């Protein structure tokens, strides 16, 4: 298959898909190496961007999908009358962050970190489809372990969980750590 043919086939299949299409699946459909499919898709996405199309070919949750260009948000929102009111509370967001970076993680592990009971928040995140039970821990009680979902990736526009910004970037710097430690040192003999 020539590059041009491959490009057209990708355009057609991604257009009719309801979910991001994995390069591996396209490779099977087109009987071409997955690296080639991905390379052509990357080039195609670049091409749309250069041509200033109103849509983009985006890499989300491990696959390719068409979506409207961010700078057309005004018209798209007007058209779709979408409610983006599904804002999460700070507590829910911080819990979601813990699940995202610590997965798989149990309720009590999250609780221990947040210092509060998180049952309600975990349930909410589960109902919204951002996290799900991914297994059970060994040991007493075999608590349920949670991880993030494909939908979480889609909502954040991420290709994979590895694309989250490194947590180290958000940790207080070494100076702050040293100082914090000083504070916590039991003051021997004073």
């Amino acid at each position: 298959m020539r590059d041009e043919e491959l490009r057209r086939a990708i355009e057609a299949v991604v257009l009719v898909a309801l979910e991001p299409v994995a390069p591996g699946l396209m490779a099977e459909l087109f009987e071409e190496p997955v690296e080639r499919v991905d390379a052509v898709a990357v080039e195609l996405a670049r091409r749309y961007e250069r041509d200033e199309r109103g849509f983009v070919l985006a890499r989300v949750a491990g696959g390719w999908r068409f979506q409207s260009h961010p700078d057309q948000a005004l018209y798209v929102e007007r058209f779709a009358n979408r409610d983006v009111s599904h804002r999460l509370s700070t507590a829910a967001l911080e819990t979601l962050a813990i699940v995202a970076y610590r997965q798989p993680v149990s309720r009590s592990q999250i609780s221990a970190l947040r210092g509060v009971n998180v049952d309600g928040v975990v349930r909410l995140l589960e109902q919204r489809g951002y996290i799900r039970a991914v297994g059970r821990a060994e040991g007493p009680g075999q608590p349920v372990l949670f991880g993030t979902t494909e939908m979480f990736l889609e909502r954040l526009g991420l290709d994979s969980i590895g694309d989250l910004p490194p947590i180290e970037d958000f940790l207080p710097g070494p100076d702050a750590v040293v100082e914090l430690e000083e504070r916590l040192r039991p003051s021997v003999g004073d």
Partner: protein
Amino acid sequence: MGVSVSTPVFEGPIDLLLHLVTSHEVDVLDVPLAPVVDAFVAALAEGKDAYGMEALSEFVLVAAILLELKSQRLLPGPDDVDPEDELVGWDERDLLLSRLLECRAYAAVADTLVKMTEAADRSVPRLAGLEDDFVVHAPDLLEGVTPGALAQAFVAATAERPGARIDLSHVTVVDTLTVSEAVEELAAELPVRRRVTFAELTGHLGAKIEVIVRFLALLELCKLGRVTLGQGRTFGALEIEWVGGDEPVGVGVGAIVVDEYRG
């Protein structure tokens, strides 16, 4: 963060106070915690509408961390201790330290997640799918799905949402427990069993709050001289013996405070 505190060394939002304490600008020993509590009570008095549950619970979290920090600092330093005990102290401190750091990091990440979501929200995926004239021969996705399974799926789909619950009457049994009720139940049960451990007495209970209420009820009975409580060794099983004879325990006639606990 809406709740402010006022202390001799600091005036402002409580999360800023925590920040200052952890970043060495205010000595935690200089912060009297009483004004912090006063601020909380004042906030409550203003009504939760003034701050919202979110801000208030955040306040409690921060206040708890402050308290933890302060108690760490106030505890006398280990004196003549064997190295192992000292290590225990280090462990706890390290745990607290790493927890504070991690909490801080996740709070910062949460802001970034919002920004990412907002950016992603500006794009909408195509969901129109396939044109109608394509014939899909894919296998029957409903294979093995019975009408009953469908009904169960409906129950699952609608019952999950807190607003869509149909019947909660069976839950309220667990939800509201009074110590006086527990006292009555124990007063009926214990004379028959005579000697029993707390674990045996509460082993069948599902909710933690039920166990707690039984424990409070036992303390009441102990106060009334109806049971003796004993513990053979530290962390050993709590043994309960009925010594109260057969007279009925007067509940609700004024002798026992009737507290209600909600799970």
